[in-house]
């Protein structure tokens, strides 16, 4: 990771408390002059370790693969791309500090790849002061394009409400009538379960109960029992990481899927690998899957396999799409300064691995297709894979501007 910065960073450390101030100042001047012509710096304060380390590692690879290919083509606007990737361990305090360092010390005005919603929400209010653009590749929290929206924020990925919406649109066509909701006990879980409950009721079906589990829950049997008792046809899950794996494993051990269909807001390859056959039959919205049959995706998956040996994972694809949107924006703007890049990204349309992505101006949400997948066994793969069973056009899955709920 960017070895050329080590000397001055070490100097920093020495300066830190001793106050030998002058050492670092010339570096700052030099960096500012470079901003117009030097490499395009993209800052990524990512949770590479900690509970969501898996997700952060995927975003990192997605961005790195893009930067590698792009630099092989001569960068953007003739300027090489430099990724500044640092670990936040999923702690908002670290994330803000790292982002601030990227902005203040390394004169980087582009941020992406932040992992947790709580990290993103802590960074967003500072974007104006920093004169920086933050383009989200994976953050699902609906608030980022609603209550907490700021002009320098863009979202290239599918948000939580959009994923939930795809599930509920799919369910309108199904003959299941009674639903239960199980979400992780934090903002994302509450928001998505809220949207789902609302959708179910508007679809004239029955919502029989919901429950929220704290992250780090080890035993899901009380919840599994409640779901079974509710008599629901299906349970909608808003879970991820270790919690998702624990729930899916234990649900299978209790034979829950034989009685109750499992639906999920997000189908993730890492989870499928971790729980194996316990994921079979899971139906859910997909943020990204290598199985999408889109021309650009087939090309991307082939290139990825050549590089890494495996097909790309959920957040690798999501982050890749984000980088492609960013790339188009920079080319259109002719630079990375917020004042130029913001209007360039607004109403930008990009052809991507998921089809067309349209960055609408009103709340900077990327309008894109919603995919429903089912986890199945497939010849040639050791673990089950998600297969697309339905798609919904972006104008149906994207909420009204600056909103998190739907009207129809």
């Amino acid at each position, binding site marked *: *990771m960017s070895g050329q910065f080590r000397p001055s960073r070490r100097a920093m450390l020495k300066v830190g408390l001793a106050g030998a101030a002058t050492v670092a100042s010339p570096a700052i001047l030099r960096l500012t002059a470079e901003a117009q012509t030097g490499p395009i710096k993209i800052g990524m304060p990512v949770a590479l370790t900690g509970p969501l380390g898996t997700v952060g590692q995927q975003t990192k690879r997605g961005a790195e693969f893009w930067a590698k290919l792009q630099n092989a083509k001569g960068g953007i606007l003739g300027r090489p791309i430099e990724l500044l990737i640092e670990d936040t361990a999923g702690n908002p305090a670290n994330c803000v500090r790292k982002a601030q360092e990227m902005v203040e010390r390394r004169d980087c005005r582009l941020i992406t790849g932040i992992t947790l919603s709580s990290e993103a929400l*802590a960074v967003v*209010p500072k974007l104006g002061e920093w004169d920086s653009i933050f383009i989200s590749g994976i953050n699902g929290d609906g608030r980022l394009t609603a209550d*907490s929206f700021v002009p320098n924020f863009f979202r290239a990925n599918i948000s939580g409400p959009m994923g939930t919406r795809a599930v509920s649109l799919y369910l309108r066509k199904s003959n299941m009538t009674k639903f239960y909701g199980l979400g992780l006990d*934090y903002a994302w879980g509450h928001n998505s379960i809220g949207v789902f409950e609302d959708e179910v009721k508007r679809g004239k079906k029955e919502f029989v109960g919901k429950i929220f589990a*704290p992250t780090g829950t080890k035993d899901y049997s009380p919840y599994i029992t409640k779901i079974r008792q509710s008599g629901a046809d299906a349970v909608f899950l808003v879970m991820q990481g270790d919690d998702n794996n624990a729930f899916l494993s234990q649900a299978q051990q209790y034979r829950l899927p034989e009685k109750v269909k499992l639906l999920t807001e997000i189908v993730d390859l890492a989870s499928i690998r971790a729980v194996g056959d316990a994921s079979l039959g899971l139906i859910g919205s997909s943020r990204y899957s290598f199985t999408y049959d889109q021309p650009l995706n087939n090309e991307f998956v082939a290139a990825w396999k050549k590089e890494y040996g495996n097909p790309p994972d959920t957040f690798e694809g999501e982050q890749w799409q984000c980088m492609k949107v960013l790339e188009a924006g920079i080319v259109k703007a002719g630079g990375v300064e917020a004042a130029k890049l913001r209007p360039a990204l607004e109403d930008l349309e990009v052809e991507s691995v998921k089809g067309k992505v349209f960055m609408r101006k009103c709340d900077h949400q990327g309008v894109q297709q919603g995919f429903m997948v089912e986890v199945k066994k497939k010849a040639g793969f050791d673990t089950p894979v998600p297969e697309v069973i339905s798609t919904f056009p972006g104008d149906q899955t994207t909420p009204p501007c600056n909103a998190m709920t739907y009207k129809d």
Partner: protein
Amino acid sequence: MSRSTRVKTTTGMAALVVALVVLVLAPLGLPPFAMTLLTEAVILGLFAMSLDLMFGYTRLVSFGHAAAYGLGAYACGWMLLNTGMPLLFAVFAAALLTGAVGIGVGWMCTLATGVSFSMLTLAFAQLLYAISFKWTSVTGGSDGLAGIPRTVGPFGFAALSSKAGFYYLALACLVGGFLVCRALVRSPFGAVLRGIRENEAKTTALGYNTRLYKIAVVAIAYGLGGLAGALYAPFAGFANTELLFWLLSGQVLIMVIVGGAGTLIGPVLGAAFFMLMEHQLSAWTEAWALYFGLIFIAFVLFAPQGIWGLATGLAGGRLRSAEQRH
């Protein structure tokens, strides 16, 4: 007082004054991000110093000191977001509130001693954590409070909202906190705390109501820890549940031990060391936690008195060799 201790004290004072001058002049020369780091180090330093009163001077090992930091941060953040109170007022009000809560916590936790005391402090901190998670209307739940402003207020304290101004506010709190703590540990009250640290049963037998002293020191440590938290909220612009989590409680204990418990200055250095190490190591390698862990183990084995012990050991060594030359 022997000659060499007097020499040592004078050198110590001189070193402190030099350090203070350097810290006061720092904003003139340091680039913006160095100021950001320095401000955070100062705030964390105050936090670690507050724990040192309990841990280093009274041997009250708290596993839940994050409660003070998080409570101060949430209280200050809430006031700044919802009441339009000026920054200074919100910061000190939050510190006072935390200190008041500290009286209750102290009363409860001092029912037990030893490891049970530690676990009660942990229980209390985790309950606050649970509350911060669940009381969404006030705390913002898992998202926390974001976009906390540095409201200037009517009395022309506008300078405080700037980068350097806020740094001076934090530095003033640290220096003020240090002077308060130093006076405290050198006072009759402090002598009793040391008594409790070395032999609580004897202290009671001498006629001290040790439990009241312990409650008092918990409340003071909470107040100062709350002050640090109250500074952090407007510094970082957010307050969230991580600030109340047990991991931070563990980390601040380590800061105190790495710096040198029972020295006040040591924990401040320990906090700066911890924060800068984590920041830099994680920039260089993903496996930073591995090196971090090894550093702690090395400290225990090779520098049992912590950073302060190393520093004073070096200074003492120079003094001794200087004396030998004379």
